[in-house]
């Protein structure tokens, strides 16, 4: 019995991870893996609550969140693209930094316990808001851009074989930065949506692993934005099932929660990364030739 309400709430609860995963897809297509996505979302979530509380306008809050994501992405541009620091390390560092900064600032501003604050929320219509609708449009738009535009072709070349992109006269650095900035926009928006779109508040470490879920979803969705979105909805659905299945099913509900990751692993076992995964993903070596 899928009433509209349950569909709308599924869309709402899946949106943060979906947004982050779609942004991460663009980043990974360019050959970079942004392990710092978790921290990026957290920064977006905190900034959005601050902006929303300060101005009383949730949309300004969203802007703050997106701004935080983009600021985060600019650091990524410097560290990952120009200094070619190991991506796993830099990402881990950024996650810690963001966790520390947001928690510290939050406690400094709202007190040790972080008493419940409630920020103005985004208004919605029939359970759906502009961001959800925008997400669907953006996913298709990005898919088109990546698959059909000149920028997308060059971006994919960066992820597959950067030397080829460079030889054709593209700046691998600029292309990767553009992807990182898009990833930052989405990551920040994802965090903002989590805090002021759903929770209406901020809590320390409120992303609780969603950034890593998003990274996992990119693999599950085989580096295609529509599939990644579908994967995010599937995860959201599996999570919503756990409550209805608790106690009624002979299969433990944890199995359903683990299922998407198990499927992603099975795909990796049986087809590997295939021809779909960006060949140079995570590679920091200066390309040869």
């Amino acid at each position: 019995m899928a009433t509209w309400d349950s569909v709308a709430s599924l869309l709402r609860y899946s949106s943060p991870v979906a947004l982050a995963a779609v942004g991460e897809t663009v980043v990974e297509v360019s050959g970079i893996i942004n392990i710092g996505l978790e921290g990026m979302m957290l920064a977006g979530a905190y900034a959005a609550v601050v902006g929303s509380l300060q101005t009383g306008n949730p949309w300004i809050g969203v802007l703050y969140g997106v701004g935080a994501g983009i600021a985060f992405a600019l650091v990524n541009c410097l560290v990952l693209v120009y200094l070619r620091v190991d991506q796993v390390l830099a990402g881990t560092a950024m996650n810690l930094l963001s966790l520390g900064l947001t928690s510290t600032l939050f406690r400094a501003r709202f007190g040790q316990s972080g008493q419940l604050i409630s920020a103005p929320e985004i208004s919605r219509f029939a359970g759906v808001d502009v961001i959800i609708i925008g997400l669907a449009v953006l996913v298709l738009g990005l898919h088109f851009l990546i698959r059909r535009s000149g920028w997308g072709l060059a971006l994919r070349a960066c992820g597959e074989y950067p030397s080829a992109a460079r030889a054709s006269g593209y700046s691998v650095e600029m292309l990767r930065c553009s992807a990182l900035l898009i990833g930052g926009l989405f990551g920040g928006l994802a965090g903002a949506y989590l805090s002021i779109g759903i929770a209406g508040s901020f809590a320390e470490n409120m992303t609780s692993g969603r950034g890593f879920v998003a990274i996992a979803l990119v693999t599950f969705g085989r580096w295609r934005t529509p599939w990644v979105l579908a994967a995010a909805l599937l995860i959201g659905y599996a999570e919503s099932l756990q409550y209805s299945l608790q106690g009624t099913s002979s299969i433990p509900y944890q199995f359903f929660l683990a299922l998407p990751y198990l499927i992603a692993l099975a795909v990796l076992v049986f087809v590997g990364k295939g021809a779909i995964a960006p060949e140079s993903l995570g590679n920091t070596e200066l390309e040869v030739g």
Partner: protein
Amino acid sequence: MKRFLITSVVLLATISLVFAIFQMPMWPSLQLTAQGAFGDRFGITRTLVKTIPLLTAGLGMVIAWRAGAYNIGGEGQFIIGSVAGAWMAKTMMSLGSVGAAASYAVLAVCVLGGAMYAALAGWISFRRGLSPVIVTILLNFVASQVLDYAVRGPLQEDTHAVPLTQTLPQSMMLARFDPQLDLHSGIYITIAAMLAAQVFLFRTRKGFQIRLVGASPQAARSAGLNEVRLKLLAMALSGGLCGLAGGLEYLGLAGQIGVSSSQNWGFLAIPVAVLGGLTPLGCGLSALFFGSLFAGSQQLARFSNSGSTLIYVMQGLAVLAFVMIEARNKRLEPAGEV
């Protein structure tokens, strides 16, 4: 030595910077942190108790990363290790064996559980030429569901009231030095592991091969080494150490596991290993350093509401600064010299 100096300077600079940013009085803050970490026997205990999991899991990261296997599944391996250990403990208790021997059997199963989980991640990754990054992230999620299932299902305590395992009898816990203090004899195991890892990586043939595979896969291949097998070995050792960390927390401190048993030790081990220069002894120093920060920073709450969360800022900034300096140095090095 030069590295040690650079690291120390970077760390001190970051700490001061963080205090400055958050407008905390510099000298009293440092004093309080040091006091909280080393001021009395309670402080020293706090520091060492935090150092144990950081160092043990950090050693795991050192070995894997040295082999070029970016294991970020320390968290999952920690969890699977402790779940396997809890299962073993339940089995032993039902057999009526609750002595020290049972305790070491449990610890061994923790190591084995972590090692097998990491080896699984390695097997999935390396046979297809993938980096273990994505695979270990995926397996971290699977592990947390396994833990959730275990503590709500087959391994739940007898009254089935809370998602925790049965508390171990005192006879199965690792010995404490002083009943008032949390410090347990697991610290000997951790120190032994550190020394063993140092000898293994820098004084044995296999250790050399592992470092070679990480530093230059091409050279390793042309020397006829089996890259996949060596990386798998490194992963298994790495996971074993993370599992050991889980086991030490289980048998040394809590005596039971629950859904939030691991306090991110598996993730925090990464900066510890990196700032330790990816050597086991260096890792010991950096684990001690971060352990003392963890223990000491609680005192900082006196100056600001924040306190203990500042440590993440310091860790993040320090790692970032450290890897940026490294990246610059690498650039300035003449090509071909690795």
